[in-house]
């Protein structure tokens, strides 16, 4: 089932729609320091395109520093106008034995489809959230909608490449009961609003994940992080890298997000 | 001194009609009894007709296999004839149910057996008392009668003994006491002296005579014993299931 895990990992690309940024007053009153919520919204836009798109995602899982598993996925994502949530269709491209398998996330339902049996299985919320499966949520595009941000202060910290970055340190508290993490610590680079690091906490207050965003490149008109490193804070030896490439804007028909259509889908 | 006597038909019919307390104790008319032997039907009693007067020592004599025991069984109502009629103590038993016949026996007919046939688990007293329990008598009366009879047979002091503690003669005396305690009209005895020595036998015979007179009881014996036969008052000789001779001693 680790295939599914990785896969679901990827599903984190799903998400809630961003943009409606809440104008939250930061607790730093001076005009020089920006509103925390706006910062979060800006970071959201950096990470994800606002129009329907597709990209290639390469996930590598490392244990004790050595690579253990590698998966290449093609992701199609689209924001739903009515719910303002993202729908995702993911197709396995590599390794060959998993090629053709698909995962559909539409609304809050997740389906796994196996071309060999032509059967699709629903994955319940309980089943999604096991161990590494939640990695994808870290890369969740739009935090501004579900979290209320507070500015903690300005900090300097090392990014994944050991370069010093001057950052705004933000503390995000979950607004929505359906938000995955009850609290997130976020470091965004000053002036560029680029996310550098995130620490994701569970309802119990314990740290679940740490994410580092780097390898910024221009993709689809914006400089975006093309690699995210996710460190599992519970299973300390587990680190996953997600490398995104080949971003393309693409119109995605409604049919692609219907479960019944999956067997006939020839997605590319 | 045996004279053949044929009973004329009219007499026998009259006898049937007037069976009262003074009439014959047993009336037989054309009685037939057969049973299934090894491969063919055996006729044990082949048409017998006679009367037995009351209060007499009657003997049925004849060789072995002549049907004596069968006849006794028929008279004693423990067997039923295939044909003919039997009247005992004035009662025709033909149409009665088994229970009714049994009840009749319990009241009117008593047996004395060659082998004494006492109940081994009961004492002499209890053996003698037994028929009275069947008749449902009160405890007081039962005790009186039982003791009286035990005394009259001279066994009062042996009353607590079990049969296996008594001699042959004593056992037969208990049997007689048992037979008489219910004051039956008829006592049937099949070879009562066969298992006794001659002295004891003669004592038993004497006892029975006494009882016959004291209690007005009719006795019918089936026997080979010459000593017993010498006391016969009525004699019926049976051979091959038929009556061949009849003798009657005058009343003394």
């Amino acid at each position: 089932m680790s295939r599914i895990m990785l896969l679901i990992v990827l599903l984190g690309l799903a998400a809630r729609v961003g943009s409606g940024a809440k104008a939250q007053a930061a607790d730093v009153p001076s005009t020089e320091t920006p509103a925390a919520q706006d910062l979060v919204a800006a970071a959201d836009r950096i990470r994800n395109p606002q129009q329907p798109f597709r990209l290639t995602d390469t996930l590598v899982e490392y244990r004790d520093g050595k690579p253990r598993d590698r998966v290449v996925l093609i992701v199609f994502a689209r924001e739903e106008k009515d719910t303002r949530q993202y729908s995702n269709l993911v197709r396995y491209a590599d390794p060959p034995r998993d090629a053709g398998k698909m995962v559909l996330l539409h609304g809050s339902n997740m389906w796994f489809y196996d071309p060999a049996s032509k059967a699709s299985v629903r994955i319940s919320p309980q089943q999604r959230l096991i161990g590494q499966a939640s990695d994808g949520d870290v890369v969740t595009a739009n935090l501004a909608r579900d979290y209320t941000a507070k500015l903690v202060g300005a900090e300097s910290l090392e990014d994944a490449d050991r370069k010093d970055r001057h950052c705004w340190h933000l503390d995000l508290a979950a607004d929505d009961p359906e938000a995955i993490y009850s609290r997130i610590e976020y470091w965004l680079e000053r002036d560029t609003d680029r996310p550098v690091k995130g620490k994701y906490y569970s309802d119990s207050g314990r740290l679940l994940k740490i994410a580092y965003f780097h390898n910024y490149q221009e993709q689809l008109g914006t400089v975006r992080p093309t690699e995210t490193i996710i460190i599992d804070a519970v299973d300390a030896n587990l680190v996953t890298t997600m490398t995104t490439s080949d971003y393309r804007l693409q119109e995605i028909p409604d049919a692609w997000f219907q479960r019944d259509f999956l067997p006939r889908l020839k997605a590319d | 001194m045996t004279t053949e006597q044929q009973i004329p038909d009219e007499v026998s019919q009259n006898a049937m009609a007037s069976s009262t307390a003074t009439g014959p104790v047993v009336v037989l008319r054309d009685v037939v009894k057969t049973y299934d032997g090894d491969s063919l039907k055996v006729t044990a009693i082949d048409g017998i007709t006679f009367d037995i007067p009351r209060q007499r020592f009657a003997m049925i004599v004849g060789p072995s296999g002549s049907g004596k025991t069968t006849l006794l069984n028929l008279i004693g109502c423990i067997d039923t004839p295939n044909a003919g009629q039997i009247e005992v103590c004035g009662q025709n038993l033909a149409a009665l149910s088994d229970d009714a016949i049994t009840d009749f026996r319990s009241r009117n007919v008593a047996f004395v057996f060659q082998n004494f046939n006492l109940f081994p688990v009961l004492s002499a007293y209890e053996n003698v008392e037994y028929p009275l329990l069947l008749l449902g008598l009160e405890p007081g009366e039962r005790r009186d009668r039982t003791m009286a009879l035990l005394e009259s047979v001279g066994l009062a002091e042996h009353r607590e003994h079990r049969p296996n503690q008594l001699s042959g003669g004593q056992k037969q005396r208990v049997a007689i006491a048992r037979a008489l305690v219910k004051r039956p009209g008829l006592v049937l005895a099949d070879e009562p002296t066969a298992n006794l020595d001659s002295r004891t036998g003669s004592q038993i015979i004497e006892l029975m005579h006494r009882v016959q007179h004291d209690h007005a009881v009719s006795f019918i014996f089936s026997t080979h014993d010459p000593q017993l036969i010498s006391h016969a008052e009525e004699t019926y000789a049976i051979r091959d299931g038929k009556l061949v001779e009849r003798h009657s001693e005058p009343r003394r």
Partner: protein
Amino acid sequence: MMLLKIAFRNILRNSRRSLMTMSAVAVGAIALIIFGEFMAYLVVGFQTTTVEETGHLSVFHQGYFEFGAGNPAAYGIGDYQTVIGLIQDDVVLKPMLRVVTPTVKLFGIAGNFDINASTTFLGMGVVPSDRSRMLLWDEYHIQRGGGRVPTELGLRDDTPTRGVIGVGLARILGLCKQLGVASCPSPPVEAATAAPDAPGPTVDLSELARRDRSAGQASGEGGVPRIDLLAATAGGAPNVLSLYVSKAERQSVKELDDTFVAMNLALAQQLLYGRGEHKAVGIVLQLNRTEDIVPARARLRSLFKEHHLDLDVRDFTELQPQYNQIVGLFGAIFFFIAIVMGVIVLFTIVNTMSMSVMERTNEIGTARAMGVRRSGIRRQFLIEGWMLGVIGATAGLIVSASIAFAVNHAGLRWMPPGQAAPIPLKVLTSGVELLIVAVWLGLMLMATVAALIPANRAARMPVVDALRHV
């Protein structure tokens, strides 16, 4: 009276044969009574264990019993404290109740990530003080007097982060040594599988990971082993917390032993509900007496209806379906043995009485000649058969009482299925009056019925033939 006297003397006539026959009946009585008392003891013991752990009745949200196992969070009882108060204060229920306590059930992943071991767990959240009290339930007085030691809970109200896990789970998570579990093989080391043509990382991952590993997760709190419990909250979010394991306790069923985790209610609620309302999945009621289950349940139902609460009540036989199955199995076995014994007694008595009838053929003829009716003959032999049965059964009763006494004072122990540790081996001698009377009457009846066949034969004997016998 004469009938009884004659019957008794006739029994004594062939004393050896009568003794054998009565012994057969006695043995039948002993077997049935001792076995019956043993099974009664087992049932009572089983009931006690079940009631200690599961209580008598459980209150759930409507639908939980059928569907809740897959999704406990969806069937929580909101505002459960009020419901508990409602139950405890009810006039009808109050005298029947012994313990009323909330409980939570959940499942997730338990891990000891230091050694990279993880597995699914089934968790139970309880209020320790209530549970300890429940473990002392003893309606049938088999605890202290009976030699059974009540189990120690391993949880306390004042240690909210402590928990108890199954021995199998301890083994899978490699905690045997720390928890003092004997003879435990160490978990296998996973063979390293390298991903084919995967490039090495572009950055030093371990250095990166080490940055935030500060105070965080020290393994163990002064020597007490720690495990991580991961579960999905009711809202669908991943949640994790630490559980400090006090001890490993063997569970009677292997699958449970491999997944069992017990913790304080508050901790379980923290894990299952997270930032949402902390509910209870069930409310467990333990009564003073088991027979109050029916009225208590009826009262609960009407109480819930009255207050428009969408709640469901189940008893322990529904929560532990094997209970009725096991009781039923015992009943079936007992029934089978009863039939076997009955048949043996039947054959023995038929045989004995037939021999008796044959030996007394001449006597039967004599009695009939003397004026005893057929029914009288039949009655005589029936009474003899009956008497053999009565004496045998009574003797059996007396002997079985001695055997029961001996067994109960012999200090024997055994481990029945469903138990994790040996318990005393005893037979129940109180409350079994019905069993004893039924066995006594049953065997007596069987003996009488058995005598019927030979008695009928005796009654129907032709008098003349009977007299011909010597």
